[in-house]
């Protein structure tokens, strides 16, 4: 099974890269707009990472040192943007910060003009909105990893707030902040949907978007490949650095346990400050989503019928991607667990490789490989499912691997002694033990895939369409009310698929 899986992953992950490199050839024709795209990609990713970290820091600190009613609910909600379809986030932000949005209307009444959201500011805003919750959870984890005794000790030794910060919190931040910033940077370098919708022309084009434009505007495959190669270099190097610094698995969880902090006053200015920070954060993150619900709900019944077929397509893509990602991850982890074989090691490397690949790079490679033989439009959905499965595979492996390792180390001897081997060992030991993790990672994969707007944009004609694509089209046709309603529907569907899988995993666990 190990080598079979190696072959499958090689076909999906390595082959497209080779095809892209082959097609790009040795052309050294770098145009000014390519430089601009690379520059914009890096600039917006740096800004997004910095702003996300700066915004997340006070939120995480307030949440880490306070206990209050609703704290757990807030932390759970902070996990939501991970499965929030990007296009939904964009529409949600437009209903607040767009020129026709709530904020613009209020500001207009007092004589202010809200600057346009399109371009760099909009792209960064959307990325911050999508990534601050992740960074917050990541930092929260960092604070939770500081042993509570240390804080107690600091308090009994009469440390000042500054000393506590310098000796206990700063070392943790030094370790976690760069990793968190790097993760956001990596996510933002492959930004497509945000740049497509919020970017404004040549000045605000990411490399991903430029690849799409080479396809859709010029149908220039050589150029698309060349851009894909640039993208590959950028994400490859970033991923390599990130891989050394980043604890991937910890992005899955997030601790709900509040810290006991005897050193922090329970009343006074600091409490007001923390309460304000948390309140502002909740409003900033919930208001756009609430506004989608309020504006979209009345229009849900009048959505054009094309939405329902698109929903079905999206569901199929999501289910297939989730199945492939989870089965693939299970295979990778099991092959690795059976000892340090060559196949096992190769598999783990292959499984993490998609972190360095963007969906459009994979999509370009697959398009080039398929186009001479099959009409790419006919396989738009399977290809979308496959690429999404590949992109979510690292997360699934990251979540499953520790669980299976733990199971193996706890029960291996017992299982061996009762002769539990092969299939029955999987059925009676690994499977029940990893079911919650399986459900959670399948839910993640499904939710991420249902909201994906990248590969499908390359492959599809007008005939086969998915829900995020329909939302984008409604937005393009400036049917904002319908677009908002369709976004609400997409949001509900992605929450639903996540919940179904997660529920399956937790059921009688």
């Amino acid at each position: 099974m190990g080598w079979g899986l190696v072959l499958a992953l090689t076909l999906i992950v390595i082959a497209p890269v080779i095809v892209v490199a082959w097609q790009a050839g040795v052309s050294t024709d770098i145009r000014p707009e390519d430089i601009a795209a690379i520059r914009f990609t890096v600039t917006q990713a740096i800004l997004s990472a910095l702003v996300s970290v700066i915004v997340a820091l006070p939120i995480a600190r307030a949440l880490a040192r306070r206990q209050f009613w609703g704290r757990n609910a807030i932390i759970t909600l902070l996990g939501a943007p991970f499965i929030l379809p990007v296009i939904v986030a964009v529409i949600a932000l437009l209903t607040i910060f767009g020129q026709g949005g709530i904020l613009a209307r209020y500001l207009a009444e007092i004589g202010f003009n809200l600057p346009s959201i399109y371009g760099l500011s909009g792209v960064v805003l959307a990325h911050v909105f999508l990534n601050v919750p992740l960074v917050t959870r990541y930092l929260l984890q960092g604070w939770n990893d500081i042993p509570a005794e240390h804080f107690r000790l600091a308090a009994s030794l009469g440390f000042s707030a500054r000393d506590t910060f310098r000796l206990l919190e700063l070392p943790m931040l030094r370790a976690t902040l760069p990793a968190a910033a790097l993760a956001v940077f990596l996510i933002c370098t492959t930004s497509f949907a945000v740049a497509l919708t919020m970017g404004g022309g040549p000045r605000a084009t990411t490399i991903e978007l430029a690849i799409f434009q080479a396809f859709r505007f010029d149908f220039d495959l050589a150029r698309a490949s060349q851009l894909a190669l640039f993208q590959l270099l950028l994400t490859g190097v970033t991923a390599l650095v990130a891989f050394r610094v980043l604890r991937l698995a910890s992005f899955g969880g997030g601790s709900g346990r509040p810290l006991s902090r005897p050193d922090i006053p329970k009343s006074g200015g600091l409490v007001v400050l923390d309460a304000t920070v948390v309140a502002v954060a909740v409003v900033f993150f919930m208001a756009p989503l609430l506004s989608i619900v309020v504006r979209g709900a009345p229009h849900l019944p009048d959505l054009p019928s094309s939405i329902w077929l698109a929903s079905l397509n999206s569901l199929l893509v999501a289910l297939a991607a989730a199945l492939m990602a989870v089965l693939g991850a299970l295979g990778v982890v099991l092959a690795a667990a059976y000892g340090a074989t060559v196949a096992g090691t190769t598999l783990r490397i292959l499984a993490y490789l998609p972190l360095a690949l963007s969906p459009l790079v994979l999509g370009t490679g697959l398009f080039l490989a398929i186009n001479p033989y099959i009409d790419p439009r006919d396989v738009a959905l399977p290809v979308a499912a496959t690429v999404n499965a590949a992109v979510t595979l690292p997360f699934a492996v990251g979540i499953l691997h520790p669980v299976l390792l733990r199971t193996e180390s706890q029960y291996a001897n017992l299982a061996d002694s009762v002769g539990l081997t092969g299939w029955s060992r999987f059925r009676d030991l690994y499977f029940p033990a990893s079911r919650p993790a399986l459900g959670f990672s399948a839910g993640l994969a499904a939710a991420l895939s249902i909201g994906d707007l990248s590969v499908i944009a390359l492959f599809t004609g007008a005939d086969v369409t998915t829900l995020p694509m329909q939302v984008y089209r409604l937005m393009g046709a400036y049917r904002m009310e319908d677009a908002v309603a369709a976004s609400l529907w997409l949001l509900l569907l992605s929450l639903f698929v996540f919940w179904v899988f997660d529920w399956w995993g937790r059921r009688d666990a």
Partner: protein
Amino acid sequence: MRHSILAAGLALTIGTPALAQTPVLTVYTYDSFVTDWGPGPAVEEAFEATCNCDLEFVAAGDGAALLARLRLEGARTDADVVLGLDTNLTAAARETGLIAPHGLSADDLDLPIAWEDDAFLPFDWGYFAFVYDSSKTPEAPSNFRDLAQSDTKIIIQDPRSSTPGLGLLLWVKAAYGEDAAEVWQDLSDNIVTVTKGWSEAYGLFLEGESDMVLSYTTSPAYHLIAEEDPTKAAAAFDEGHYMQIEVAGIVEGSDQTDLAKSFLEFILSDGFQGVIPTTNWMYPAKVASDGLPDGFETLITPETSLIFDPSEAAMKRDVALAEWLSALSQ
């Protein structure tokens, strides 16, 4: 494992060839043509009343994206007719080898220029112009230099995906030649955003995202006639206005050649031309027997009209595009 992946993949491959009784004529066109308020519905009804067929419009983005879509699909395309390219793109479209000669005579048109193309037939025309709200912007700029110097905010379309975007590129090129790059550099701080198509740009303008939007001298007629709103106006530019002639052609290798041909004939009849002014808001290529609707006489008519012939436009496009990209990506 691999079996499940394959099975999952196969389950997704849904072939959807609808087996229709009546022949289907597939027409690729741009987005705004097929909207409820565009010409699509009326044209479909009128043609289907006589053709004993099913006319199916497929919206493929804006006009220039239409050509890219055709290239991308190549000989596999489902399109029988492509409607909505303009003369700036016909040379490139011809080069694909995907357009068949129409074999129809095109005399007797109401175009400002003579028509001699054997692959494409014109269906409407107009002049590009910046449209503004005269109640908010009392004094509109009267040429590109004034515009660049003012702090007037404009929304334009991407020349790679949109025919108005490409038209603007060639407009500036026709008016300024060698100085075009400099004009674009000066204009770059006036541009709020560059959209993929006309629909997005016009929608954003109506939502108040900019002072002016690249559209047509005929656009104010829509507001005047359909909305009884006289405040929208087109700014007259003293360099002259670039002309757009929108065309349709038959796709080579179409399995409905006869039907495609009769559709192209229909395009120049009253049934099509009569709805153009008040749905596509352009001048008809052949004015219908009842003339132009009331309100069109209020529109500005440019003193100088600019246009490159198709081969000239194709030649100038690449240079102009490079200038535009480098000016706007700084």
